[in-house]
């Protein structure tokens, strides 16, 4: 079965549920809940000190990322998804790996996915893709 066929069938999934949903009932229930909750929640003003602390944290994180991960030059990637993997950061590669395995990955009994850098995550992903 090809991808187009799967996509065509998938485009019809849930069609009956879309027609069957009682929009007026949903709308009335949502508005009643919002009234009792006091409507839209207003964002709390961020204090100057909080904003400053957040800025420092972001800068520190960016500096760490540049130092620890950003300068890694991995080998050229190949395979079906390889060209797309090359541009992803560690968090995104970790997220993809997480979605590919059922159990949390622990390597050598001591190292987890969080300990791997972008290059190592990409290599592991390629190995899993076969």
């Amino acid at each position, binding site marked *: *079965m090809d991808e187009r066929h799967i996509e065509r069938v998938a485009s019809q999934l*849930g069609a009956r549920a879309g027609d069957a*949903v009682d*929009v007026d009932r949903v709308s009335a229930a949502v508005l009643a809940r*919002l009234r009792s*909750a006091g409507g839209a929640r207003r964002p709390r003003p961020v204090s100057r000190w909080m904003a400053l602390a957040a800025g420092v944290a972001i800068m520190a994180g960016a500096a760490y990322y540049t130092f620890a991960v950003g300068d890694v030059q991995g080998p050229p990637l190949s395979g079906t998804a390889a060209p797309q993997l090359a*541009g992803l950061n560690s968090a*995104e590669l970790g997220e993809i790996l997480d979605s590919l395995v059922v159990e949390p990955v622990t390597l050598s009994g001591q190292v987890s996915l969080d300990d791997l850098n972008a290059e190592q995550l990409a290599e592991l992903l390629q190995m899993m893709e076969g």
Partner: protein
Amino acid sequence: MTAPEAHPEPADAELIAGWRAGDEGAAATLMRRHAPPVARYLAASGAGDDVEDVVQEAFFRAFRYIDRFQGAASFRTWVMAIAGNALTDLRRRRGRRPVLPLEDREVVDASADPHDLLVERDLEARIAHAVTLLPRMQRDVFLLRAQQGLSYDEIASALETSEGAARVHYHHAVKRLKRVLRD
């Protein structure tokens, strides 16, 4: 005699501004416009009998926290992402497995050959089941792309990931679906 002046439907952005100003009618119009596709998305995600409850929860969260909507994705896509989270929360609370949307088997094309129809129904049921088995991120990306027809850019904005990561998730979703359908 002049023809009655047509009143075009207000854009989502106008309605969102209306709700921010406290206009319940604006919120109701947004729900009327977007609840059916959100319900479709949830049904395909395996929400089963809980579709309407989760639609309700998703819109409640969306309107309650409307200030978090930055407009990077469309309002509908943003609500779908919220709906996906609400469904996950519900399953976690109840410890429930995804439910196959059985009603999709009943879609009938009267002009089709009966044998082809049976084959197609069987395929729909298998794909519907296989989609509910996908890991969360793969399923969300696959449905937003294949069912809702969104661009990778918009999917990435809604799911707070990159366009490249969304493409990879889609690739793996299709690969996994093909494998399940082959077995």
